[in-house]
């Protein structure tokens, strides 16, 4: 970096205006903090946070940063669970939060939004007109962030598809400042080269997405069903049967493991059958279609050994059932434990039940720090993502927390390799770089580094993420 922090802030103010460059300590802390269980270090803050209002301003910022070789970390909402937004080399944190426009064009059958708009807001506005956002990440996450890692959150992959299937076009600013318009304005995506697809899922290392055009999807009718099982393993077998026997796939399928159910039932005062729980959201063009599909799920669950299964047509019971799933993060509070949502395993369908069982007992008989944690299993089974929340005492030192985090990530890598997973919810960079290298080999990893070099010769964008720095 060839410029002082003071000069950097002064120069950036000339580009985006004084009100949109933040150098205060608490601003910089908030843009550096992550979901890691330990604190951000005083030396890990960005020099300043800059909030451009449009692609032109982003372009000016990047031209400046590229000229002065200042690292630029892009920040959408800070909800990344693999710490892509944590600045590893100070410099600029470029927040897309002001890129929050939204235009819904029913004539063209697409909507266009700024990268920083939150998915919750888009879901709400699309919903008013009877459309559905095929990205169901947490409502505070940014659309740009979701597109940049090509995630669709909880939804089943092969119903609506991922952002790469639904994005028509992107506006992207390159590290060198050029603004690219990619994709189409018609509903037909280009066959062959479509540069939008290069940037979707590239995790912000090739350019900064500033605007997204996505196809409008009519809101489906939905009906939920629940199944109570003695063990989570039975749920794994049920999902295997669902695919093999060509059941109508639910657009969202969730499960909660035995231990997590117990805590959830206790927290909410529920008298549900002991064991694990699966919830599905079936869809249809009409309510009747959706109900018919949900009934199929009940049939599936019963044939797979559910002790009880029914349609969630009573709103009060439905709220309680979803409450158990939503209350996942409350576990451990009463025991003075700090929860850390740290793993995602996506087993191949035939090994789903086995993986679920292994994760259920993951802390047992271990001599490492993981063995001293409490693990709670839950996740998605429409397309499978098994999440484990590891809880440990608040009183652990930062060093001890860092050690357990390392152990957990290593464990995640081993399990993903064992069960053929890919990290389907959260992306790769930075902390899954070792997993990527082992899974796909050094040639693939080097290819990504070469692409980064080509697009970003001074390595200013999200510096440290490809390198696997956390």
């Amino acid at each position, binding site marked *: 970096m060839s410029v002082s922090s003071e000069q950097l802030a002064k120069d950036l103010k000339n580009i985006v205006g004084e009100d949109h460059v933040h150098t205060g300590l*608490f601003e910089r802390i908030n*843009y550096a903090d992550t979901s890691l269980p330990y604190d*951000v270090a005083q030396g890990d803050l960005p020099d300043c946070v800059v*909030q451009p209002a449009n692609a032109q301003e982003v372009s000016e910022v990047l031209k400046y940063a590229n000229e002065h070789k200042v690292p630029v970390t892009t*920040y959408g909402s*800070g909800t990344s669970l693999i710490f892509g937004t944590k600045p590893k080399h100070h410099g600029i944190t470029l927040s897309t939060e002001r890129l929050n426009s939204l235009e819904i064009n029913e004539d063209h059958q697409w909507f266009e939004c700024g990268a920083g708009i939150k998915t919750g807001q888009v879901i709400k506005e699309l919903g008013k007109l009877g459309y559905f956002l095929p990205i169901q990440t*947490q409502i505070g996450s940014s659309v740009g962030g979701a597109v940049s890692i090509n995630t669709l959150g909880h939804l089943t992959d092969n119903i609506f598809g991922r952002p790469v299937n639904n994005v028509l076009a992107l506006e992207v600013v390159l590290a060198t400042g050029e603004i690219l318009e990619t994709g189409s304005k018609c509903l037909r995506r280009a066959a062959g080269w479509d540069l939008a697809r290069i940037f979707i899922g590239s995790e912000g290392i090739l350019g900064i997405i500033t605007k997204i055009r996505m196809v409008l999807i009519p809101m489906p009718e939905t009906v939920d069903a629940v199944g109570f099982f003695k063990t989570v393993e039975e749920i794994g077998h049920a999902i295997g049967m669902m695919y093999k026997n060509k059941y109508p796939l639910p657009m969202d399928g969730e499960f909660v493991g035995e231990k997590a159910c117990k805590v959830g039932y206790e927290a909410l005062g529920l008298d549900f059958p002991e064991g694990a729980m699966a919830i599905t959201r079936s869809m249809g063009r009409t309510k009747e279609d959706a109900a018919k599909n949900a009934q199929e799920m009940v049939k599936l669950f019963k044939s797979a050994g559910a002790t009880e299964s029914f349609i969630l047509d009573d709103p009060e019971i439905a709220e309680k059932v979803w409450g158990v799933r939503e209350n996942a993060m409350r576990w451990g509070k009463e025991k003075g434990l700090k929860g850390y949502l740290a793993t995602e395993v996506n087993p191949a369908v035939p090994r789903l039940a086995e993986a679920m069982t292994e994760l259920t007992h993951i802390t047992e008989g271990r001599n490492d720090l993981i063995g001293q944690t409490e693990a709670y299993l839950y996740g998605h089974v429409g397309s499978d993502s098994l999440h484990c929340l590891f809880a440990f005492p608040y009183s652990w030192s930062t060093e001890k927390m860092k050690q357990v985090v390392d152990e957990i990530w290593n464990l995640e890598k081993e399990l993903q390799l064992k069960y053929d997973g890919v990290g389907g919810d959260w992306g790769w960079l930075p902390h899954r770089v070792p997993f990527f290298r082992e899974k796909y080999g050094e040639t693939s990893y080097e290819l990504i580094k070469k692409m980064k070099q080509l697009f970003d010769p001074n390595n200013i964008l999200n510096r440290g993420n490809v390198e696997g720095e956390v």
Partner: protein
Amino acid sequence: MNEEQREENIERDLNEALISCEKCHFCNTVCPVVDTRVTQGPFGINRAIYYGLQWNEFNEELRDLVYSCTTCNKCVEMCKKVSRALPLVEIIEKAREFLLVEKMAGPMPEQVGVLKNMHVRGNPWGNPSHERTKWAEGLDIKFASPDNKVDVLYFVGCASSYDAQGQKIAKNLSKILKQAGINFGILENETCSGHEARRMGETGLFAYLSEANMEMFKQAEINHIVTGDPHSFYSFTKEYPDQDNDFTVQHYTQFLNELIDDGRLKLTTKLNKTVTYHDPCYLGRHSEMFEEPRKLIQSIPGVTLVEIEDNKKDSDCCGMGGGRMWMEPPKGLISSQAIAEKRVHQALDTGAEILLTACPFCNITLNDAVKSLEKEGTIKVMDITELIAMSL
């Protein structure tokens, strides 16, 4: 407990509450103060408090963030629903107390005089205390005392005592109570409930004012209080000392429903109005009173209630709670007017001709927002009492 121990205790309480944050950001998604920066909402404010304590940094930047919260409690409901059920607003209020009492870093500069006014004159605006009951002149309203016993004490509150818009509430509610034949009165020396002092972190002043009011209630032999101010209502029922005292406190929406149910209050004039209702934070989310105002509105002949987009537990704030009535947020933090205007836009979307509320603060703020949006010809802001008075 000496000063040092007290400071350590507050620090410990704040740390214990903040350390379990999962940093999920859900709280920020519902905060009315969040505009375009993560730092602006409960997530950012609480992380700032946490790191302030860890790094021993208590500067103006932290103060501005901590005092920007409206204390609307929407984040608390969200955290309860999906995360660790952290008492986010309590933490912010405790941090305000910490900054004000221990670090001499609070409140906001404009609030210093407000707190002084509450202490010296018994109201935040610094109006003469002898003018507090001026609104009641000529209305033949009793001053409650042992010699002038009343069945119901109407606790008016500062806004309804001094503000022209608020005084309408006081006059209308008095008219309604008279019509129902209630033996009611007000306190000749009523003073501020202290609710807003507590929100600003001045817990000592709150204690002083609450004791003063409790003493007056006792001396006037009060056993039933009705108020039109949800802020006072909340403090009386949740924060005043001696909670097991033997008097009942009601918001007027509760009391008027009772009067209608037992036939003492009759609403006879048909109004033919379409209205929507804004849930005040301290009546709704904080006191969980959602149905009482709706039942009251629906008991007015000819009135059709259409719900506003965010309602009941999800209601948006008017922007003036938590001490914001007396401060303009520093540059870079969202203004109260912008928050209120957003709410008025939601009300306009309903097509209602009247935006009802049941709080003098909300009434003042939303009225100002209607004016700033130049929508006076489209929608009117009223307290429910105004509509009830029209239908008598």
